[in-house]
């Protein structure tokens, strides 16, 4: 067994940390308040290679491994969750489907500019009436005159409406399977497709600088060759996409917890009460120790899942455990970080108040805690 990061992984981690602490962190408060999508940070992340981090160089990526990807997401989330989800959703949900299931032509057309960060892409699975139950999709696509004609609505889709967004890959019912259940396929829908519109950005409690919208398809039309992967494979495909995505959302959760811990540790050393820094009180020390302990624990689980993925092992259960645990750790850590800040933690100008709001989605997005438990129970054969 070996817990050392490789030189390359360490270099990437340190690059991500430098970038996040110097370029992202100072901006986080403003971005949150103004709901300002970080266009310039996206373009810097593109220049550094983050937007295509795990994809091979021949597709415009940096060719780094999953461990490096997880470490990068952690460092960015430590500075700002909105920037982190923008990058992580782009890589794991926007670009990965093309890498996993695209034809060579689709890879050249979409994956290359996505990996270079010149274009963003969304992944539209959730619908107003189908979230956890995403297989119960009611968006329909029908083949007509060499086109797919799509009708339906998608809800809560990240990166779907920025000025850089090229389109969204959606799940839609394209027929009926032999067993009578709906057949689901993934369809590539560019922004310019007639009949495809995006709502305004949702007003959100957290991740306020990230771009989340409702998508509407009214006889939206795309050419017949817009399927991603074979017809009818959509359900299997999105499960595979979500499996890999769990590592990055877990990293996002623990990164947020690390950021809150950093703030709490510093604050505890600076804040004086009853004549001494509050870090000298055992009650505060115990909180900080427990926070660190849980962060370390979650990090190990995430890195193990990433390592398993990099080594071609079955990582699905570890990744689900890591996603679930990291999400809950982020709640406990952020909560205690605010507690350590006392009344100041409730104030807008203290980063922990933003982190507190940014945290909740970790337990909902890409599989709620409950759904995560269901997935794991199923993997356990229960």
């Amino acid at each position, binding site marked *: 067994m070996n817990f050392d990061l490789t*030189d*390359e992984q360490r*270099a*990437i981690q*340190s*690059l991500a940390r*430098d*970038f996040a602490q110097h370029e992202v962190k100072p901006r986080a408060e403003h971005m949150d308040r103004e709901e300002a999508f970080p266009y310039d940070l996206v373009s810097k992340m593109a*220049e*550094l*290679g*983050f937007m295509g*981090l795990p994809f091979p*160089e021949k597709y415009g990526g*940096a*060719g*780094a491994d999953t461990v490096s990807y997880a470490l990068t997401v952690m460092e960015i989330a430590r500075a700002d969750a909105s920037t982190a989800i923008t990058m992580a959703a782009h890589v794991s949900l926007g670009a990965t489907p093309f890498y996993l299931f695209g034809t060579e032509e689709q890879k050249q057309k979409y994956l290359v500019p996505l990996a270079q960060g010149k274009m963003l892409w969304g992944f539209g699975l959730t619908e107003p009436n189908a979230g956890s139950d995403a297989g119960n999709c009611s968006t329909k696509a029908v083949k007509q005159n060499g086109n797919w004609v799509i009708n339906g609505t998608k809800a809560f889709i990240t990166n779907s409406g920025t000025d850089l967004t090229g389109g969204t890959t959606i799940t839609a019912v394209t027929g009926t399977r032999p067993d009578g259940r709906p057949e689901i396929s993934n369809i590539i829908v560019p922004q310019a497709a007639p009949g495809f519109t995006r709502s305004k950005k949702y007003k959100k409690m957290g991740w306020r600088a990230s771009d989340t919208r409702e998508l509407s398809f009214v006889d939206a039309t795309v050419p017949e060759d817009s399927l991603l992967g074979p017809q009818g494979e959509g359900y299997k495909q999105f499960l595979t996409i979500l499996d890999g995505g769990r590592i990055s959302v877990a990293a996002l959760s623990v990164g947020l917890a690390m950021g809150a811990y950093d703030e709490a540790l510093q604050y505890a050393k600076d804040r004086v009460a009853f004549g001494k820094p509050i870090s000298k009180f055992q009650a505060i020390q115990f909180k900080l120790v427990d926070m660190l302990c849980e962060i370390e624990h979650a990090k190990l689980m995430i890195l193990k899942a990433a390592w398993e993925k990099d080594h071609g092992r079955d990582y699905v259960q570890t990744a689900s455990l890591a996603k679930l645990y990291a999400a809950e750790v982020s709640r406990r850590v952020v909560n205690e970080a605010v507690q350590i800040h006392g009344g100041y933690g409730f104030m807008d100008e203290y980063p922990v108040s933003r982190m507190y709001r940014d945290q909740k989605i970790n337990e909902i997005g890409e599989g709620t805690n409950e759904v995560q438990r269901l997935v794991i129970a199923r993997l356990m054969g229960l």
Partner: protein
Amino acid sequence: MKIVVTVKLVPDPNAEKRIDPATKRLVRTGVETVLNPYDEYALEAALQLKERIGGDTTVTVFAMAPESLKETLRKALAMGADDAVLLSDAGLEGSDVWGTSYAMAHALKKVGFDLLIVGGLSDDGSTGATPGALAEYLQTPLVTNARKADVADGKLQIERETDTGYQIVKAPLPTVMTTALTFGEPRYASLKGIMGAKKKTIAAMALADLGLDQSVGAAGAKTELLSFAPPPVRGKGNVVEAADGATGAKAIFDFLKEKKLV
């Protein structure tokens, strides 16, 4: 054109440091080693020049440091340097400024350069004496504190930062130049750079390659560190407490005025 940048490998400036009273040396265990911050500016200058001049211009980084710190140089390669040379030898341990510069100069002569860019100051030793000593041993001009540089017709022209503005200075190549911190923020190493750095070479040099006439290392040191002391602890400073911002600002202003600072 061949540009060489000297890069000292120093303990992380942000880490808490301790000097071992017995050896009078910095305790390096547990402290990460990084590129000397001034030298990152020197490297940035070299990379900018390379981009501007183009052609077959190359950037080589050079360090004198223990072999165990070799991988730290990858960051310079990831930022965009083409290759690196590391001078390591047990016999170099304990070198003072003279010994360091003497050995480095001989090594740099072997490496060869048209332009040698040296950071102005190391974060740990902080003598600032190395650049001058190198130019002396290498018998080249020395232009210091450059905030801008360009090469044309075999000559280096720089804008030299001074307290009152800047001077324009020209020198024939080969020459030694030091950079000012106003040259431009060092770039990040991109992921592409990091991945590519694996494939770049870090050549090794040892004392035996240099053929020095004089001994370096602790034995050859001409200076001796007698004692050291930590900087005095800073006082608490004045804390202004005020009911509102305007009163507070007024109190601070009055204080600065009294000290004749405004």
